[in-house]
């Protein structure tokens, strides 16, 4: 299949690029640091006694596991935007695509082939880092967050949202514009998420709406919120004492929205690319 030929070449290309090596290096450094940190944190709280000790230990362990996943989330967001940011715009600008498009390949196949390649690459990256964090949490603290699989699934959807945006932007815009736009939207969703949480605590309807609108515009942060919510024990989530316990949990409809949003953004990229002079 021609689409898979494009996917295959794109993955091979990603594998040879320095930016992926740098990303992996950052990920590895992060995991080492995380393991050391977790080790000392567990050592620090082991000796504490008292009636609430068990709950405290659980809280700290879970919190630190989620902190690790939060860092993974951050690294994933960076790579999901930056790795694919120039794959189309760069090849359009340089003319590499001219001989490709002159083959009996549909332009849609080129966009989707590249999209699939980067979704797979970022999923691999997520699995590697999140798997690393969970393994470290398990072996240093015997702590595994509940519903970790579900949490990872939400993060995987977040990756799809970001890769779709980056690929579609590259089909229509130049590399720099695309990068600025993608991070701008991500920042908007991030800020919107916090405004919503703080507003919910204060029962402020207006701020909650701002958050919802931001999530509708860019449904990436809400996927992380769902992930972090799922991966906390019920009672901790309800006590809302951790920064990751959220006051207003995005609804399941948001997941559907994220998927539809990605499909629509990608479709707009395909349409833009089909008309583009190469």
């Amino acid at each position, binding site marked *: 299949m*021609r689409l898979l*030929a*494009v996917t*295959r*070449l794109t993955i091979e*290309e990603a594998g*040879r690029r320095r930016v992926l090596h740098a990303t992996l290096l950052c990920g590895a450094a992060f995991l080492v640091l995380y393991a050391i940190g977790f080790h000392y944190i567990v050592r620090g709280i082991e000796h504490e006694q008292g009636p609430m000790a068990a709950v405290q230990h659980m809280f700290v362990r879970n919190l630190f596991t989620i902190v690790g996943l939060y860092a993974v989330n951050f690294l994933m967001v960076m790579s999901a935007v930056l790795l694919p940011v120039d794959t189309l715009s760069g090849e359009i600008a*340089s*003319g*590499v695509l*001219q*001989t*490709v*498009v*002159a*083959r*009996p*390949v*549909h332009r849609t196949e080129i966009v989707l082939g590249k999209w699939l390649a980067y979704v797979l690459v970022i999923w691999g990256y997520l699995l590697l880092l999140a798997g690393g964090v969970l393994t470290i949490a398990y072996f240093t603290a015997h702590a595994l967050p509940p519903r970790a699989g579900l949490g990872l699934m939400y993060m995987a959807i977040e990756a799809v949202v970001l890769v779709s945006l980056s690929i579609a932007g590259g089909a229509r815009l130049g590399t720099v514009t695309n990068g600025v736009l993608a991070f701008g939207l991500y920042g908007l969703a991030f800020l919107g998420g916090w405004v919503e949480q703080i507003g919910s605590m204060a029962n402020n309807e207006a701020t909650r709406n701002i958050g919802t609108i931001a999530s509708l515009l860019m449904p990436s942060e809400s996927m992380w919120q769902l992930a972090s919510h799922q991966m906390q024990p019920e009672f901790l989530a309800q006590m809302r004492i951790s920064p990751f316990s959220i006051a207003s949990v995005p609804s399941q409809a948001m997941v559907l929205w994220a998927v539809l949003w990605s499909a629509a953004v990608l479709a707009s990229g395909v349409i833009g690319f089909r*008309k583009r*002079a*190469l």
Partner: protein
Amino acid sequence: MTTFEPGLAVETRHLRKRFGEKLAVADLSLAVRRGEVFGFLGPNGAGKTTSLKMLLGLVEPTSGSGALLGAPIGDRATRAKVGFLPEHFRFPEWLSARELLRFHGRLLELPEAVTRDRAERLLGEVDLLDAAHRPMRGYSKGMLQRAGLALALLGEPELVFLDEPTSGLDPLGRLLVRDLMRAMRDRGVTVFLNSHLLGEVEATCDRVAFVKAGQVVHEHAIAAAAGDPVSVLLRAGGLDGETVEGLARFGRDLRRDGDEVHLAVDSEDALPEIARWVVSRGATLRHLSADRVSLEDKFLEVMGSDQRPG
């Protein structure tokens, strides 16, 4: 529904392309027969590359229509039978020539074994076997151009578009391109050559179209050049009026300018007769030469002196 002539390799009707304010191709109507080596000649900015990109589906025409091998432009199945060497051949730099061919073999949906065999044969033909395993970022300009030619031929196309294939090549490289084009012609492949190198076009093409501001202004058959007039220049002392008038029976457009006489004849065969006549009249023949109207003269004549480099 417009129908297109299946016997034609390339056919266009009033193709037009506008980039914003800029009219790149004004009104292109062309017919290239199958098996022909067709030269598309024009000065910089005449719209050669844009025309070719419209034919290949890289650029959408603003208006007009066209067909390749009888199928309307944009038809994907037809593109399997078309080869293309872009003006600036670019490629993923980390790939080797062999890997690039393998990737394009997949885009053509050729069986891997077929791609492999063809790739080795073509890499041999363009003399690139020694470097075929190295990343192309380390290739010289000539090597890249040759890799691009191998790529253009990978699908065993019936129609090949070459956009200035010899630009940046040394004389040996040019010769190689010329030989490849001859080999294609012998196999019955239609070649569409964009160029402004008149010598190259003269040596390889059957027919040329001159394009100016995106419009064909003149078509010229090179293969039929044998029937074209030959212009004769004669210089002699002691020419009298009767001698000069007597030259008129050898050709046309007789013109005297002091000691010099210009005359258009049908073939070089007339030269000995002309010499005999002049000598028999007692004139002193100092110079007698015959020139075919060169493509360059034609080019300058057609393009006119108003043409600025675009």
